[in-house]
């Protein structure tokens, strides 16, 4: 083979292969760009000079230049106007028992239409739903669902509530609020499952629309929030206090993670704070950690750690302290705080017995706080 011929042949072969590679490269560029995003002006932000904005929805208060997105990844500054990209763009829609949220004092044995969009304003290393919460809306498959359609779907599936859950509802605030209003029109209640990392003004507005809020208090030390959540503790405590002062029903969940937030002194301090600030009637759930996401190699929580946490919280005066994610444990049940009569027997999500009479203990007539009807 002559050198020139060899070079020609090689060049020809290269060109042919390159031609094959071309469409693939175009394909590569397109990866993840199959966006189905909304473009609706967001609420709670401030316009600044030079087309910058400051988001005022959550304590992060992202200050963004043109075309930049907030930490949550679902709100974008476009030419000095802030837009939500996930209004009506639902990526998860399920029917779940309300006990799964968990709400133990809200309409037991009913289902909640549970929905979420992508995005979150924190990044917990143990997130159960990291595939939604840490995704950008372009990275998930969104289904179009208007607030009216969501409310209609709840009715169709026999759900007396809509739960805004899975990821962080704060980041799809506009959609949550409008859906809640639509649901109310149809007599459907609204419950929010949140990390409580939200500014007082939007939260206050939310409490006028929804019926119950469950806040994940992830630990009682600022260090934990800094290291494992990428958030801050104080705004969450402020949110809890605000919700408690409103008419909205409040429950608190504390996920006990071995060695990270299971210190009994911290748990006692938290319970003391709860008793002193929001009272002893707010249910507190100590739930068992299952290895997840970036902490999937940590062991699950030993049941005895949950029991110790529960005992510590009770000792501080809290009246409704539960153990979660341990099906069959007596810590799942509701007892009358006065006479210790068994009121609701649970087995996982299952309600095996409900002895409440008009929201009160059948034995001593003590009113049990909650949304029972």
């Amino acid at each position, binding site marked *: 083979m002559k*050198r020139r011929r*060899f070079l020609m042949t090689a060049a020809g072969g290269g060109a042919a292969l390159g031609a*094959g590679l071309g469409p693939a490269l175009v394909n590569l560029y397109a990866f993840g760009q199959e966006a189905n995003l909304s473009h609706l002006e967001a609420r709670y932000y401030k316009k600044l000079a030079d087309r910058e904005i400051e988001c005022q929805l959550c304590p992060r208060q992202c200050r963004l230049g043109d075309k930049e997105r907030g930490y949550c990844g679902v709100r974008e500054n476009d030419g000095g106007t802030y837009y939500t990209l996930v209004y009506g763009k639902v990526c998860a829609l399920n*029917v779940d028992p309300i006990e799964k949220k968990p709400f133990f004092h809200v309409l037991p044995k009913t289902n909640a239409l549970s929905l979420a969009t992508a995005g979150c304003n924190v990044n917990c290393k143990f997130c159960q739903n990291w595939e939604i919460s840490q995704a950008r809306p372009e990275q998930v498959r969104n289904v179009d669902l208007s607030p009216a359609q969501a409310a209609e779907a709840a009715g169709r599936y026999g759900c007396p509530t809509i739960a805004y859950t899975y990821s962080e509802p704060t980041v799809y605030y506009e959609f949550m609020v409008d859906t809640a209003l639509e649901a109310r029109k149809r007599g459907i209640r609204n419950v929010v499952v949140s990390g409580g990392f939200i500014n007082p003004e939007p939260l206050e507005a939310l409490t006028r629309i929804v019926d119950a809020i469950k806040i994940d208090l992830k630990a009682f030390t600022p260090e934990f929030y800094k290291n494992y959540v990428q958030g801050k503790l104080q705004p969450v405590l402020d949110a809890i206090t605000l919700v408690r002062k409103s008419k909205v029903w409040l429950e608190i969940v504390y996920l006990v993670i071995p060695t990270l937030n299971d210190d009994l002194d911290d748990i006692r301090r938290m319970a003391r704070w709860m008793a002193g600030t929001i009272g002893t009637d707010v249910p507190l759930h100590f739930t068992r950690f299952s*290895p997840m996401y970036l902490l999937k*190699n940590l062991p699950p929580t030993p049941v005895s750690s949950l029991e110790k946490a529960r005992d510590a919280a009770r000792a501080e005066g809290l009246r409704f302290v539960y153990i979660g994610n341990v*099906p069959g444990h007596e810590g799942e049940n509701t007892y009358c705080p006065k006479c210790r009569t068994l009121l609701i027997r649970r087995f996982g999500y*299952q309600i095996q017995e409900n002895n409440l009479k008009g929201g009160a203990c059948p034995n001593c007539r003590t009113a049990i706080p909650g949304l029972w009807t």
Partner: protein
Amino acid sequence: MPELSNGDPRPLDLRFSPPAGLLGFVATTWQIYLIREFAAQFHGSELTFSFVLAAWLLWGGLGGLWVGRRFLRRAGTARLFAAALLAAPAVFIALRCSRWILKTLPGEVTASSAVLGFALAAALGLNFPLGAAFVRIAEASARNVARVYFWESAGAAAGGLISYLIFIPLLPDWTALAVIQTAAAGASLALFKKGRPAIAVLAAAALGPVLMALDLPLQHSVWRPFDLVVTRDSPYGRIQITRAAEQITVYDNGTRAFSSPDPTAAEDAVHIPMLLQGRPERVLLIGGGLGGALGEILKYPVRRVDYIEIDGRMVEAVRPFLGDADRTALDDARVHLVLTDGRAYLERSPDRFDVIIVSVPEPTTAQFNRYYTVEFFRLAKSRLAPRGVFSFKTGAADNFMSPARRAYLGILRTTLRSVFEAVAVMPGENAVFSGSGSPLRLDAEDLSARLETRGIRTMTLTAEVLRNRLHPLRLDEFRRALEEPGSPINSDGKPIGYFFQTLLWSEQKNGAEARLLRLVSRIPPLPLLAFPGLLFLAALLRAAARRTSESASSVALAWLGLSTMAVEILVLVRYQALYGSFYGHAARLLSMMMAGLAGGAWIGARIRRPSQRRWTALQAGIFGLLLLACLGVSKRPPEIAFDLFLLAWGLLAGDVFVTAGRLVPPPPGRTGRGYAWDLFGSFAGAVVLSAVYVPLAGLPATLAALAAMAALMPAFSHLERKTPRG
């Protein structure tokens, strides 16, 4: 342009070169233990292994290439050995302490970029000085690279065999490392009479016992605040048991295997297939028995349970810590524990089972992927009794699945569907896949009724949970996600499952490597294979344009390194798919290759007149072997065929290396160039092959592409010969 000259007709001197033998021995044993330590410290995905291998080869190559540079000019063999020996304990200790360096929790997922960083740093400390030492030894042997290459390969073969036969089965990893360290330091002191940095080497020798003494305290510190109660190195990896309150957690190579008591963990894996089958009497359980599955199976009136566990040391280590229920289950007269490879057991067993449950780790590596392939599913189906059910579970998501997870689960469903007439997949945090020749009905009410009638009490798998998991809304979305068209089949020859597992793992950190893997996953196989072909062509053209036989030989040696590494990886993947017990036999197979390389180098050195024709014939031989591999890749050759193939490849490759050096002797000051190019080629082969090409393009296509590239090599030599001198 000069043609490849006919070399010196005299046979080369192959007298024993102790430094070269020591170098081969130390390099191989360190490499083996480095990979084991990485597997135990980080998540042992295929990507991790290829990072370590690639970093190793890259720094070895650079060491050889940069030996002439100012900063290495005064470094003699003794100093280079001393540097490597001093670095070795530091490297292993730093790796063990990676948790503090990376500021992660015990057992926290580490980003692949961090793993790559550690791999590069470790290989810099260990193999950079050794790469440079190779060249120094060759310079001291009157630039007789063949002699060094021969004895280095022989040392490597010995290192592999000794590790396989003695170190791994008998010694904890760091004890073996201490033995290697002290012995190598002693040998180094004895060998290098002139200019030896004796103090450094003595210090290095003393570090051996230090390493051994630090092993356990460091392991305990790494796990703190958990209480590490057992740690044991087995041929399959590191087994560690931690205790927190009443609960123990068992780690296999740093990954959580199970906790005990944890009554909820095994219910999914067991009850779905058992309930779907109806009345199971004979059950085969592959893995998972220590994590509670046995106890769940024994809730049914079964006649016999065959429980297969590959690692006997795992059973020994865990048994004393099991709760009463799990220990009773393990000792139940109906349970027959067999310590062997699950796939091999199925192949040998003449029995038929009502239910086969596979509970092995997810297919993060080619080693585990072999339990999720179409070939394995076919094998399992052939061992099912009429109405029998085959089942396995894998991580999913309860509420939402990312595109990568959908793709991964879709692959498993398509693969199962291609074998079984009926397939049912239970959604949830664990997706439970079941396949059968008879219809399968996944209905919440039906399954709850069966639980009820048999009086089986479960903790998590209750009627309410079944209803929730099988709610039409969730089930429809789950089915839609899994039944997307175009999902490929996971097979032994194209193990795409582990690629998507690696992608899923990377997505958790959502770093650059996840984006890169996502992009690569979108490239169709043809352009994927064409890309390195294009690079190779470009290298050939560049070499042709430079018109020097040295550049021609560099390309040839880079190709040699790449193809040798590729063949090594492809053969190991195929071997373990067919015969399993990879860890036990990998060292043997690699030693076979090393022995071949040594033999080839010997032949190449002893031959009287190396010629252009011989060179071309050797290239043709390599092409022939690749062609043979292409033809045989879908067959099932006897085990010995793998050893012979690697031996034959080693013989040819060793010969090619030496012949290239004889035909185109390196100019003074460039003695190590050929070796460096060989390692760079190997680096390229290692970095992309196991992680990307094997799973995405498949073994047959990758082999065919290699054969096509091999076919170009003789043509290239031909070109050189016909081109007039420049």
